[in-house]
């Protein structure tokens, strides 16, 4: 059958994936610490009908060949780790990372997960935990009688109790050579992979790591306008590909009706 049918079909599939990514970005526009994704495309293989450079005579060769492409494919959904906006919350347990790095979270199975979502809470044992109840690593335990909690820009945590102020821990953050290679697990958590490289753990502010801002949350870095424009582009690209399929189909119809 016509190559064009399949070629245009790949275009529709690719734009569908593009729209899926855009929808996910828009759905998470208000998710704390969410990083937007971007679908990336490349052209598919080419069928060589006539090879450029083939000899056409003793001293002559074809300057150009005939190659027909077979459409497009999605190669990656890359996460873009640009900084999100900060929102002041007034809550002592809200932390934002200004710059590179992730909070480390201990999962129920003992492994570590990474997040930019710093909306921590205190659980019944006084530990700083995520909204899901997973503790921050290294663990910070806040005394029962603490009246306020202070986190410095370099991660030093101190609690004020009626007895006075005491240091109760140090928050460290992990950085990756290639954060885009992290595996996203949903629920604002990501996992280390071979592509991300191993985490480099350090104090906030040291060796280029980001600093902490207390009473602030990092919002998602999704730009609604940008996503809406991408959505329009994706829809139109989908549409023209469907037109190409229709045209190819009409051509087949013409060929079929040659014989009456």
């Amino acid at each position, binding site marked *: 059958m016509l190559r064009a049918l399949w070629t245009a079909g790949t275009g529709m599939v690719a734009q569908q994936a593009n729209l899926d990514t855009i929808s996910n970005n828009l759905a998470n526009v208000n998710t704390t610490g969410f990083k937007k994704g971007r679908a*990336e495309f490349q052209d598919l*293989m080419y069928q060589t*009908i006539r090879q450029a450079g083939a000899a056409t005579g003793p001293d002559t060769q074809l300057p150009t060949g005939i190659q027909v*492409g077979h459409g497009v494919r999605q*190669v990656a959904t890359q996460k873009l780790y640009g900084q999100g906006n900060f929102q002041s919350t007034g809550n002592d347990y809200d932390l934002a990372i200004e710059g590179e790095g992730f909070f480390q979270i201990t999962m129920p199975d003992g492994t570590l997960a990474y997040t930019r979502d710093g909306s921590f809470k205190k659980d019944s044992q006084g530990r700083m935990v995520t909204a899901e109840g997973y503790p921050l690593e290294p663990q910070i335990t806040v005394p029962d009688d603490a009246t306020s909690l202070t986190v410095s820009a370099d991660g030093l945590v101190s609690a004020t109790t009626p007895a006075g102020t005491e240091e109760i821990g140090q928050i460290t953050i992990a950085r990756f*050579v290639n954060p885009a*290679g992290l595996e996203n697990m949903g629920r604002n958590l990501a996992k280390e992979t071979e592509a991300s490289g191993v985490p480099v753990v350090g104090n906030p502010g040291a060796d280029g790591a980001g600093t902490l801002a207390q009473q602030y949350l990092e919002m998602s870095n999704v730009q609604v306008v940008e996503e809406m424009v991408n959505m329009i582009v994706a829809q139109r690209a989908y549409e023209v590909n469907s037109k*190409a399929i229709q045209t190819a189909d009409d*051509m087949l119809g013409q060929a079929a009706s040659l014989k009456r």
Partner: protein
Amino acid sequence: MIRGIYTAASGMVAETTRTDTIANNLANGNTTGYKKDIAISKDFASLLIQRINDGPAVPPIGTLGAGTVIDEIATIQTAGSISSTGNSLDFAVDGKGFFAVETPAGVRFTRNGAFTRSGQGELVTSEGFPVLGQNGAIAIPNGKISVEETGRVTVDGAEAGQLRLVEFADDRQLVKEGNSLYRTDENGQPATGKIMQGFLEQSNVNIVAEMVNLIAGYRAYEVNAKTVQAHDQLLDKAVNEVGKV
């Protein structure tokens, strides 16, 4: 049989290939760094019609074409529009030039500058092929990467390498390989284009023009189909009516 049937059919075949090419352009209308293809057709070498049985001194009575064939599918290397992404590992080339990429099959060239950092800290394409600098792959440790227009890469102010940007005297020698890559036997020369960090080059496909081409191609196909039908009707008459008694 009637020569016109084959002539018109060659037109249909050529328009099919043209539609394939347009469909590929449309499918890649949103692909970073994609360059559109156009199908160029030419007429078959015109046939010389000669009078038969005229002896050795045959005077020609004119020429007759025998249809069309796709002669070339040319890649148009004009610049695509450049859009801002704000991502520090996105590069666009303003002007002439291709990034050199090391693939298992050898050095390839691309205009798709949506790069990432690998787990080993090298600058790689989205498929994981290292992007080449003047001295092999470019290692970019953790830190703030910055690329100058000339392709000099620095990380936190320290020099990390120099991107290899090449251009070719004749872009038509570049063969598309898919995956945004081009292959060529030439080595090329240092390019004059400037590297823009935080930008990506969109494909240079003009959707409106492609839609017009699609319509034109379709109509050309249609008239050729009608010609085949007309010739068939002639044959029908010749076979079924002329001989009727």
